[in-house]
């Protein structure tokens, strides 16, 4: 069996955020977590790696390179990750998985269920669900090795529940012995005793795009960010990851976000560039210029900030609702949200 393993720059040992711009590279044998896969019984022939930022910003080029290597190697199975809660890495894994799947290569991934990589994979990968951090590595590796071995040797794989992977969005009709009404009552009784289960997973809620702003020149605009921009020293202790709060800071009399007075504490990207000029994250100086020129009515007196790192979707949605419930009564009609 020929196995290829995809890792990002960090797990391939090339560096942290400062190496996130690394172009794709090919390494013989196992690296980092790949050695754990080998210990779990899955020998790795080739490791492919790409920086998370490079993939996100040059996706067609990254995919072309990675897929051409896959074409040369012709693996029996591709393993991507584990990427846990990392959004950019998970997205790279899911996108690579999707394209490998289109070329007939079975793929195993591992990440949190609401990682954008799950959607990006479009059902092509068998994704082992993990927790958000590297703490899940020990349990993830044997599960990945098991699934990959099955797929690579052409053995059949059971249902998601049986074989421990996330539903792939494929619908298989089965005949059950009980009718729907009986199953619904059984599920309700189970729920009442604390055992919640479902036969159908919920989809994302979609919001209709609000109509265009008719007259920008009289509109109140607000700035919101998930780039973790805060006053220097992070006085209110915005968490740098897994944040459970958002914060609000005044902009009255502030024409620009100076590096002396503001910084980013976001743990998910290399903040050095942004900390030399925080307007690179929240474009306050440009908005003020356009406000002076009358291109917008006014900028709202506060900006809102959080650090979107390993943030569960439900928490992010709650933040959005809470911030919106301040903006709307304040007469804000439009928001520029910035993020990484």
């Amino acid at each position: 069996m020929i196995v290829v393993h995809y890792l990002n720059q960090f797990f391939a040992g090339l560096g942290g955020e400062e190496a996130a711009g690394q172009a794709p590279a090919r390494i013989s044998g196992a690296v980092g977590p790949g050695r754990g896969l080998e210990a779990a019984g899955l020998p790795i022939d080739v490791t492919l790696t790409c920086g998370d930022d490079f993939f996100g910003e040059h996706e067609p080029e990254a995919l072309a390179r990675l897929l051409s290597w896959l074409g040369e190697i012709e693996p029996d199975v591709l393993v991507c990750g584990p990427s846990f809660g990392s959004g950019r890495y998970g997205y790279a894994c899911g996108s690579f998985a999707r394209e490998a799947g289109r070329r007939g290569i079975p793929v195993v991934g591992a990440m949190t269920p609401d990682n954008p990589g799950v959607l990006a994979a479009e059902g092509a990968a068998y994704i082992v669900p993990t927790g958000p951090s590297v703490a899940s590595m020990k349990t993830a590796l044997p599960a990945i090795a098991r699934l990959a071995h099955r797929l690579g040797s052409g053995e059949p794989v059971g249902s998601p529940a049986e074989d421990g992977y996330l539903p792939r969005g494929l619908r298989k009709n089965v005949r059950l012995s009980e009718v729907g009404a009986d199953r619904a009552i059984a599920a309700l009784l189970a729920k009442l005793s604390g055992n919640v289960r479902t036969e159908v997973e919920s989809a994302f809620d979609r919001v209709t795009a609000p109509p265009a702003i008719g007259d920008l020149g009289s509109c109140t605009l607000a700035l919101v960010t998930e780039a973790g921009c805060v006053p220097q020293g992070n006085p209110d202790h915005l968490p740098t990851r897994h944040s459970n709060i958002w914060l609000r800071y005044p902009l009255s009399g502030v024409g620009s976000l100076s590096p002396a007075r503001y910084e980013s504490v976001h743990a998910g990207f290399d903040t050095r560039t942004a900390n030399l000029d925080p307007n690179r994250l929240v474009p306050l100086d440009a908005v003020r210029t356009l406000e002076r020129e009358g291109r917008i009515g006014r900028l709202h007196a506060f900006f809102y900030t959080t650090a979107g790192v390993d943030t569960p979707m439900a928490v992010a949605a709650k933040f959005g609702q809470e911030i919106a419930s301040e903006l709307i009564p304040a007469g804000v009609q439009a928001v520029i949200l910035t993020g990484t």
Partner: protein
Amino acid sequence: MFITALPTIAQMIGANRVLRGHAITSPTGDPSLAAGDEADLRRRIVERALEMLSTDVGPSTAWEVSR
């Protein structure tokens, strides 16, 4: 609307007005430019954002800054 260097993810999650930012590490700036040019770029990014806010769009629409 949402300025991000990863518009595909934003579209997948259901953001309707998405503008591609310059880079993950500086969505509304470009450190390789001279100060004046970077200010011009940031202004163009915000102007494009305002254009998007004042345009009717379908679901999950992503624009480039262009120029």
